[in-house]
Every structure is written in C-alpha cells, then in structure tokens.
C-alpha cells in the first residue's frame, strides 16, 4: 500500500533488474560453492558501487549522493530478495553513518572510497553470541595524546580483509569509536564463515596504541554517534529482511498454484490459503512499519529510535514465519538444497541476530514505556 515517487519507482525497478541479473541467488550459490573467503564477490561489489548504491547515504561533499534511508531501504530490500552478498550493510550503511555523524577528515578521506567501492569498512561492536551494546567490555585507556586499545570482537560482518575497522570501545563511562587498520600486528583477524555463506570475523586487538586522531568523534559524542549508526543499520537490515520475507512468500504462493496433489493445485486447500493470507497481511504491515522507520530517520523525527527497533523486531518474526512456511509448504523438496528456500532461511536467521533480535529490541521498547 506504499506510495512511491517516480524517482523511487525508478530506483526500485533498476535495483530489482540489476540484482536479478548480476547478484541473484545463483550468484550466492556460486560464491558458496567456490568457497570464496571474502563472503562476497569483489567484482560485484565494484559494480554495485558503480550503480551509485554505496554512496546513497554519504553527503555529496564526501563523494556520495545523499539519497536518504528510504532509498537505501529500497535497494536493501532488493538485495534481500536476491540474497545479494555484498558489504552494503557493513560499509555503505553502518560505517558510512558512523563516519558521517562524526564528520571531519575521516569522512572526507574514506567517504569517496566507500562510494566507489574501493574500501570495505566493518563495524566491530559485538563481543558475545548476542548483540548487546550495553555490555561492551573492549577498552581504550587514555595514554598521552592517544589510547591503548584492547578488544575481543565477534561477528564483525565483512571484517575479514576489511580495509579499516570501526572498533567500539569504552573509555571510562564514555563510548569511543576508533578507526583501526587491521593490518597492524596488534590486530588478529580470524575468518569465520557463517551459515549464510557470508563472513563475520572474530577479531582480537591487544595493546594497540592509537593516536588521538584515530578517534572518529569526541568521546562525549560517541554514544550519540553509535546510536545513530545502529538506528540506521537496524532500519536498513530490516528492509533487507523484508525482501527475504516477500521473496520466499511469493515463491511459496507460486508453488501452491503449481504443485498438484489429489488432482488439484494444493493452493486450493483452505488450510494453506489462510496461512498464506495471514502471512501476507503480516508482511504488509511490517513493510509499512519499516517504511515509517526509514522516513523517521530521514526527517530526524524523535520516533525514529523506537520505530527502527520495532521494525527490526517485527520483521524478524514475520520473515521467520515466511521461511518456515516456505519449507513446510514446499514439502520434501523444500528440505533439499536444490530449491532456494533453504538459502533464504539461512540468511534470514543470520539477519535476525545481526544488530539485535526481536527480544532485545522489544525489551528496550517496553522499558521506554515504563514496563
């Protein structure tokens, strides 16, 4: 029920056409079967950047196009539909927003490289099996004009072979975001292939001496910059997951029309129809929720924080139903690697954990309501 401007429709169509042709589920299968260590295809990354999509959230004076989150969400949704593997979320969203919110030299230096696909920058925030920024243990102790950084980070998406890491660490009670070169000796990066054929590195940083200018923004701004970064990341990740849910639901509906048992298409059976219709309604209201979150971020509305969390929480629930129903309604063939539904289920599960699952965000939302 969403209304799109003509520019948005154009963007959506071009993203849809491009992904289907160049960055489809088959491309992900190839990536998986060739055991590509990066978790994405470098040429594809470059081509996506050539389309302008890595500069969507960058300001024009940092090499970007400033299209806003709503536009970025449309592209991410198409990526979700095609299971496109690229460092979009890590680099063009999370790191981009962290740099942008901080401003200054780092933005002018790295912005243009992100936009052209010449740099991958990963956000190193999580430390445990579950996303929980309030429990960060990594420390950056002040040392002269600089800091000494110690961190043990997990699930650093696209962190393997990244050009830079943005490491989140605590300095006393403050939050610092540090730009770290992973090729230095004090940084150990361990590749960690995930269930969805992407990469999430484990990173150990031991007594790394950093200059004061490696800090993205003043310490008293760190928490605010991190909040903005995660807010954008959640809303765009939710868009990607919405793409997953819509795609599997549509594929399942098509299968219900095609598969015959007892002499009729199984889509004739009300037991299946009503489940698909309910799923459809859930997906559609989730789409509206995500869209309002993206809009709220673009207009710096004070509801953006709550909406982005609700969007992330809700889409995870809905896409889980979508992928589970896809396997169930495809029946035996749905359990095979030959059809794609399993690949959607795997990526969906990883997306759910990324930047916090439903319980994490619902807990936050309830607390803000006083319960």
């Amino acid at each position, binding site marked *: *029920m*969403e*209304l799109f401007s003509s520019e948005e429709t154009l963007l959506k169509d071009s993203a849809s056409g491009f992904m289907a042709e160049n960055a489809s589920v088959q491309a992900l299968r190839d990536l998986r079967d060739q055991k590509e260590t990066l978790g994405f295809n470098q040429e594809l990354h470059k081509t996506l950047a050539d389309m302008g999509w890595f500069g969507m959230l960058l300001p024009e004076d940092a090499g970007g196009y400033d299209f806003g989150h709503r536009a970025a969400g449309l592209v991410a949704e198409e990526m979700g539909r095609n299971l496109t593997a690229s460092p979009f979320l890590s680099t063009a969203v999370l790191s981009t927003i962290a740099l942008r919110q901080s401003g200054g030299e780092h933005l002018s230096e790295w912005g243009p490289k992100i936009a052209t696909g010449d740099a991958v920058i990963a956000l190193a925030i999580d430390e445990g099996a579950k996303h929980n920024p309030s429990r960060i243990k990594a420390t950056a102790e002040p040392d002269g004009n600089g800091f000494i950084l110690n961190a043990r980070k997990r699930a650093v998406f696209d962190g393997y072979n990244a050009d830079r890491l943005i490491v989140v660490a605590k300095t006393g009670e403050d939050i610092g975001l540090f730009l770290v070169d992973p090729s230095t000796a004090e940084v150990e990066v361990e590749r960690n292939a995930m269930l969805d054929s992407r990469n999430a590195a484990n990173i150990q940083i031991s007594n790394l001496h950093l200059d004061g200018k490696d800090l993205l923004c003043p310490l008293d701004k760190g928490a605010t910059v991190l909040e903005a970064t995660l807010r954008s990341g959640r809303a765009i990740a939710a868009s990607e997951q919405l793409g997953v849910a819509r795609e599997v639901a549509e594929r399942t*509906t098509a299968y*219900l*029309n095609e598969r015959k048992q007892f002499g*009729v*298409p199984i*889509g*004739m059976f*009300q037991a299946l*129809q*009503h489940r*698909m*219709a*309910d799923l*459809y*309604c859930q997906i*559609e*209201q*989730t789409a*509206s*929720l995500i*869209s*309002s979150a993206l809009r709220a971020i673009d207009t710096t509305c004070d509801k953006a924080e*709550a*909406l982005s969390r*609700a969007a992330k*929480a*809700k889409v995870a*629930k809905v896409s889980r139903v979508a992928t589970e129903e896809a396997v169930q309604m495809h029946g035996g063939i749905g359990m095979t690697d030959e059809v794609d539904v399993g690949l959607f289920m795997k990526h969906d599960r990883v997306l759910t954990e990324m930047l916090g699952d*439903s*319980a994490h*965000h*619902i*807990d936050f*939302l*309830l*607390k803000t*309501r*006083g*319960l």
Partner: protein
Amino acid sequence: MTSLDDFRMETRAWLEENCPQDMRKTVTTESDICWGGRNWTFKSEAQQQWLERMAERGWTVPSWPKEYGGGGLNGDEAKILKEEMTRINAMSPLESFGIWMLGPALLKYGSHEQKLQHLPKIARGEIRWCQGYSEPGSGSDLASVQTKGVDMGDHFLVSGQKIWTSYADQADWIFALVRTEPDAKKHKGISFLLFDMTSEGVSTKPIRLISGSSPFCETFFDDVKVPMENVVDERGNGWTIAKYLLTHEREMVSNLDAIFGGSAGLYETAIDSIGLDETGRLDDPLLRADIGEFLIDEMALTAHLAAAKDFHRAGNQLGARSAELKYLGTELNKRRQSLVVQAGGLEALSGPEENNGIGNQSASWLRSKGNSIEGGTSEIMLSIISKAVLRLPSLG
C-alpha cells in the same frame, strides 16, 4: 503561504470560535456520541449547537459535495480539518451509518433525486439510518439473503427477518438487501432498498450479548410496502452495492479505536496491577513478553493504517485490501482486550455483568470477541485475500 496553510488558519479560527468547550473532550460514554435522527435527544445544548454549526458548514461530512449537504473539501483539506479538530480534542459532531455507509453508496450508485432526498438529512443529522444485511440464515454467506420483496407494480411487498441490525430500534430509515428477483441467480436477485422504519409491518427487538446489552436488534418485516423508486441503482444490482459498502465498513471497523479515543490503557493497567521488579521491568515476565509482542504489532498496524490512508487519499481504491486492514485491526483489538483483562486480573473481572459501559474492561473484552465476526469474519477476510490478492485457486 499556500492556500492549504490559509485553509488551516481559517479552520483553526473558526473551530476556536464555534466549538463549544463542552465538546472538547474525549468520548467516555456512549451518550457522548451524537447519532442524530427524529428521536434524538441531545445530551446537552452544546451537543446540539456543535452539530448545527458543523452541519451548517457541511463539515459533518466534509468531503461530500456541497449540493448534498457536504463541505466540498478535497482530501488535503479534509485531513487538515481532522487534524485541527484533533488539536483541540473536538468530538465528532455526528456519527451515523448514513455517514459511513449509505452516503458513500448513494454518492456512487444513487440517482440525483435519491441523493437530494437523503444526503442532506444525513448531513444534518435529521434522519438516522440502520443497515439490514445479515439474516438468521445468512451470515458469512450474505448473498443467500431470503428476505423477499414481491413486485406489486408500483411497490414491493417486503417480508422476512434481519438480524444484527445495529440501532434498528432507534433508526428512522433502513437500507436493506432484499431478494426481489426470485428467478435470477443468487448474487443477481438482490436489490438495495431504502424504506422508512415507521412503515406498517416493521418491528424490532434488541439482542442481549455476552457483554451485556447491545445496539444490535432483530428486525422483522411483515408485508411492508416499499415504493419502487426506493430501489438504489438497478433492480438485482444490490450485491454490487453491498460489496462496495462492505469495504467501507471494514475500513471503519479496523479503525474503531479512533472513535473511542485510543488504547484501552493496557500498559497503565499492567503497571498498576502487577508492578515492576528491581530492574524496572513488569514483574511478570511471561505477560511482559506477550505485551511486547502486542506492542510491536500495534506500532506496525498504526504505521499500516497511516499508509493506507495516504494511499486512499492519493486516489487509490483499497478494494480487497480493506479485508487486510479489517483482519489485522480486529485481531489486534481482541489481543489488546484479552491482555488488558489478563493484566488487570480479578480487578478487571469485578463489577456486575450489566455494568457494561465504554471503558469497562471485562465488557470490552467480551465485546471484542465479536470484532472478528461482524463485518465479515476473519476467515472470510483471509479467503478474500487468498482469492483477490494472492490469486490462489478457489472452489467457487
């Protein structure tokens, strides 16, 4: 300044001057709502004044054409009027089935004479309408209606029974689905008839629900004379109008909260009756988890309804997608009411059964069970979506 800004300022000034102070509050009891009609007794002078002033400007039905008693406002202006009314917490001057349902049907299908005869009276709150659709044997299968209208030349002789006729005992006129073409196919034999409830042969009887007394009635027709010219559109085309109206009803039903002033106080009830633990969280983790699930769905539906309104305002028809809103809205309200009672515990269950005004938690909970039945059951909504949106094959 754009003309819309001008309109907003003028509207604001006019409302400020003309909306009585007593009409600037949230609806708390049924009698706060003004339904109008021949038998209407105004609750206060303010209620009457407010209706008369708004009707004078056509603002009881802001987007209807002026010649039929409306305000002739476009979508943007109507939205501004609504926003400005909300800003001062102004009550709606008039609610009625004539506004929600018959009006839109007549605007689309009625003759010029029918529009002139009925619409201005609806707009001014002079005639109160009720809807005669369901019958004891025709619920979900509405097109099977058996109430018959026998062609007597210049009039029909209508006989049969309707059920779930809201406010039939207080309404002045009824719009009803009547089988006038007994030899035509099921969906082609129904006409959309309008007639006066004071006609000889019409009688009504209120229905008591599990939640207590209700506006619903059984309505009986015993050889009621209805003039031929009271058929809307062609004879036998009643089903088309009924379907069109049902989509209106669904949109309305999915947004019922707006009429009764928002949430049912779930969060407050939970905090008051259960309290918080030492971490500041509700001291019942399982109920808290259920409330959390509800909370994100409530946010999702709020966003979805706003999107649907924008979509509709941009000139798009919701069509079968109104079934989606009806389904989501009513199922969510059932969950909300159920959680309120769960959160309130025995407190929510105390008080005699007949104490069932707006705001009574147990009565609201019981009443909400009907939300997914009236206006088309949830199962019918899902079937409509399967067929019309998902294009899944169907048996019939």
